């Protein structure tokens, strides 16, 4: 008998971390070790209620638990926000391709992230940092609506800023009294001289409007469309390229993505919607 594609494995929420007014991270312990590659996603089920796709934000090195950072955006995410420690959940996956980390070796990795888009980026960042010597540099440009909207504040404002081989700039759309950093949307902290573009790959993840304008900037700076990696947010449901909901042109985002190069998807309409 063929293994059931739709069968989830059971798990439990073991911790909940408030990240921002609308975002929480859930630490989830699956009933057995769970292996994924950074950038792959899972379908998280709230039993009896529904499931939704999320890219784990934790390091794939950790197999006995994973973190999933969730913004309250729809029916299932709102219900998940109401859940606490001990809540039974279920997980299907991992699905999709993840980031091609090995292809990044020997290059600058230029990461542009915004809002809850830092969730997949955190997993990628932790993976890169584990083998930081393999890359020329890791250059991060992260934005949030306000200082309070940044997620992973402790590490983002702290140890991540001090890591060897990492250069990081943060910005907020609107500052407040305590914020002495840059104010402006994330594209205002991007620059053509941030990295040696011919020896760099770019990774973009965030709200669609941010991804759109960041990509426009990167192309203007001279990034090759094949070197711009986008995490596409579509309505992934089955996870195995059958149900059709996440189709982006000929691609099933769940199976062929969720990470695509701009070169792969640019010809399709409404990719940012």
């Amino acid at each position, binding site marked *: *008998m*063929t*293994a*059931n*594609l*739709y*069968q*989830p494995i*059971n798990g439990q929420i073991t911790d909940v971390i408030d990240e921002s007014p609308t975002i929480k991270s859930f630490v989830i312990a699956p009933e057995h070790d769970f292996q994924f590659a950074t950038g792959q996603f899972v379908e998280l*089920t*709230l*039993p*009896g*209620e*529904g*499931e*939704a796709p999320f890219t784990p934000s934790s390091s794939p090195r950790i197999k006995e638990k994973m973190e999933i950072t969730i913004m309250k*955006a*729809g*029916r*299932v*995410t709102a219900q998940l926000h109401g859940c606490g420690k001990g809540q*039974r959940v*279920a997980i299907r996956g991992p699905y999709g391709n993840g980031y091609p980390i090995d292809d990044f070796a020997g290059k600058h990795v230029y990461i542009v992230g915004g809002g809850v888009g830092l969730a997949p980026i955190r997993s990628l960042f932790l993976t890169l940092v584990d083998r930081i010597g393999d890359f020329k540099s890791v250059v991060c440009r992260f934005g949030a609506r306000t200082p309070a909207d940044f997620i992973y504040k402790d590490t983002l404002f702290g140890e991540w800023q001090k890591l060897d081989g990492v250069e990081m700039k943060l910005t907020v759309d609107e500052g407040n009294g305590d914020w002495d950093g840059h104010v402006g949307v994330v594209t205002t902290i991007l620059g053509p001289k941030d990295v040696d573009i011919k020896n760099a790959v770019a990774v973009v993840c965030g*709200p*669609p409007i941010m991804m759109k304008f960041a990509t426009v900037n990167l192309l203007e700076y001279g990034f090759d469309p094949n070197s711009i990696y986008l995490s596409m*947010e*579509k*309505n992934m*449901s*089955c996870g*195995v*390229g*059958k*149900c*059709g*909901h*996440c*189709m*982006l*042109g*000929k691609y099933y985002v769940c*199976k062929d993505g969720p990470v695509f190069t701009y070169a792969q998807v640019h010809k399709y*309409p*409404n*990719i*940012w*919607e």
Partner: protein
Amino acid sequence: MDTVFIGRLKSLLDAVAEQMHLYVPRKVDGHYVCVGYDPSVETAVEYNTIRVCTPVKEFLFPLRELAAVFPEPVAPADVRPFAVFGLKACDLRSIEILDKVFLEKDFEDPLYVARRENMFVISSDCTEPGESCFCSVLEGKPYAEGGFDLNVSAVDDGFVVQAGSSKGKRFLSEHASIFGDVPDALLAERDKNRAGVQASLERINADYQLGGASKDAVEQGYESEVFDEHARTCVECQACTRVCPTCHCFYLYDTKQEDYFGKMKMWDSCMRTGYAEVAGGGNPRKILGDRLRHRLMHKFVYFLERYGMEMCVGCGRCVDAEAGDMDIRMVLKRLSDELTDKGKAVAKKAK
């Protein structure tokens, strides 16, 4: 013997029904539907002239099914062998298409596998194409050349039965006593009948014949206004995707029962407004014309690129079913004509 003769269809169906549950066509209000076969009723035997109204996918990928049970997994109920009589060449092509999706290596759908393995396919030649049949436009034929266990062709005074698989051959040899030999004259008659039906199909579709490959017409017509124009006559009833034997979109949803949680799998339709919408409200295909274009692109371009065959068999069910006026043959024809005209314009300019 791979090809035999039988005088009465009922003898064949009775022999099948002795071994497994059998579905047969029955005409109801001018359409054929599939019903369970009752050998005790003499009038239960009908030779359907064209495809039944409902899509064959119902047998392999039902409208709604329980896809998974948790936290304690439960093995799905065993599927018993079953047979379907009266499938047509377009139906067999639709099974081939569904196989590509649901039997895909490393991504096999166990629910589909179980039904597919237990299905005994008995096809039959079309004898009177319907007004909406357009398989010939897409290089289809009104008779099956493969993909069946048994194929039945009506001839004078009886039926030619051909085995197309090891299961079919075994059936013929196990029931050798009810079959007779096929003289060459009967095979010639079968070929003549087939050619006749093919010719009438081509007559019916004379106005819809495409100037080139459907892929080129749809792909290069991507920016065409045809999609938006035809969308104006579509009332979004979604009937086209429901009756389509190749459309296989589905929706997974969760249920809570007394002693288990379930994941249900149910047909969905890419023509539905919220189909591709994400939780944040983004929707790449808010506009009906965009959804229509996507459906056609999926059928004639994307699926072909991925699996090597078109995802339309020309059965015409969508033409019959739609509540509005959105004829896929017209959309294809107009796109094809636009492409031909474009080609002519370019050639003229070059001169």
